[in-house]
């Protein structure tokens, strides 16, 4: 495979030609924040949290293949601001009552909020009225927290490759749903994987909850992305306001 040279924030990097930018960055020890993306799963580019500038133009790093000589801006004030705003938008769009959420502490959206120093969303909280789907014998889908990242649709399939989950409706009515028949027969193992793959607390296993104590959860002490690049996330006085 051909290797290409490129730069992220002026750091010389090398990757396989055609690798997506998030993967190429990771291989060079650079963390580009992602939310809808999953390693080794076909990207769908829905959340835009991985926004970078490629040769001066905005692009999503999870859907943009690396090419020779690319100059990528990622860790800049401008990009940071864009990503933070996107995260705040997601918080305001749904009903994210973290204190009541089973995924709290293990949630990737929340972890991004922490990483970006979000104290409050600058956008008006929408408080949408959303239902909970309990069709599946092992799972509930809580639409209050679904960010429509399509991870469940892309990764949770039966032996024949048919997805258990699907999108219905369009625009702001877009929703994840489950095939009713398949939902009834979904094996527990698959259900567990569905919960694991959902980045937020929208897919939850029935009959069990809060298995990891506070203090030992995934993002209690470690910042998201710290497995790729050492970060020292600190909060400063100015960040406690929403300007």
């Amino acid at each position: 495979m051909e290797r290409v040279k490129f730069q992220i924030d002026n750091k010389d990097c090398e990757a396989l030609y055609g690798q997506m930018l998030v993967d190429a960055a990771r291989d060079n020890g650079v963390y580009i924040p992602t939310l809808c993306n999953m390693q080794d799963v076909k990207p769908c580019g829905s959340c835009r949290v991985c926004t970078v500038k490629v040769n001066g133009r905005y692009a999503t790093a999870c859907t943009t293949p690396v090419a020779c000589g690319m100059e990528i801006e990622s860790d800049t004030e401008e990009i940071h601001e864009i990503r933070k705003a996107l995260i705040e938008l997601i918080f305001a769009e749904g009903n994210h009552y973290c204190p009541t959420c089973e995924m709290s502490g293990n949630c990737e959206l929340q972890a991004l909020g922490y990483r970006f120093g979000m104290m409050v969303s600058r956008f008006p909280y929408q408080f949408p009225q959303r239902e909970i789907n309990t069709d599946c014998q092992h799972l509930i889908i809580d639409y209050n927290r679904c960010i429509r990242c399509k991870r469940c649709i892309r990764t949770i399939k039966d032996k024949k490759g048919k997805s258990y989950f699907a999108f219905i409706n369009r625009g702001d009515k877009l929703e994840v749903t489950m095939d009713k028949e398949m939902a009834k027969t979904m094996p527990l193992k698959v259900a567990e994987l569905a919960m694991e793959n959902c980045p937020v607390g929208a897919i939850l296993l029935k009959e069990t909850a809060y298995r990891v104590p506070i203090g030992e959860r995934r993002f209690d002490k470690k910042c998201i992305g710290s497995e790729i690049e050492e970060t020292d996330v600190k909060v400063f006085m100015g960040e406690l306001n929403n300007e």
Partner: protein
Amino acid sequence: MSKPLVATASLAGCFGCHMSLLDIDERILKLVELVDIGKSPVTDIKTFTQQYAVGIIEGGCCNSENVHNLQEFRKNCDILISLGECAIMGGLPAMRNGIPIEECLNEAYLEGPTVHLNTEKIFPNDDELPMLLDRVYPAHEIVKIDYFLPGCPPRADLIWDALVALLTGKELELPYEVVKYD
């Protein structure tokens, strides 16, 4: 020189944030060296008689009294802080947002599984009672808020460090573990 005055209020909250303030343990002695606590449920002082340096708000606004209270705080405090998830985004009380008021009242006073004694089927409706708002509002949707300290409740270290930084003008540098939304 007199010490800066601090006021606190619990609006549509559970007093958990105030409890967390007490969680600063022995630092509370340093706190009273640093500030005077005026109007607050802690002191039971109920009115503003002079301009305050800092107002700390727990809880969002779920009724007319909360709104009035919050506006008083804005008028009388130089700096207002939203303390905790309820003040910041409505929190648990806001889980009623989106549900019609009538449905909420029916559930609470007529049809809820724990309603046994309301045989006359009345809704509390005394003039003394504040009016419920159509929904619960985060504090910053009612008045301008200067700082936000998240958490449910906010960690004592967060409250302490932020207050000290604010009052002494010292730099604030909080470690990752201290800012959480739960």
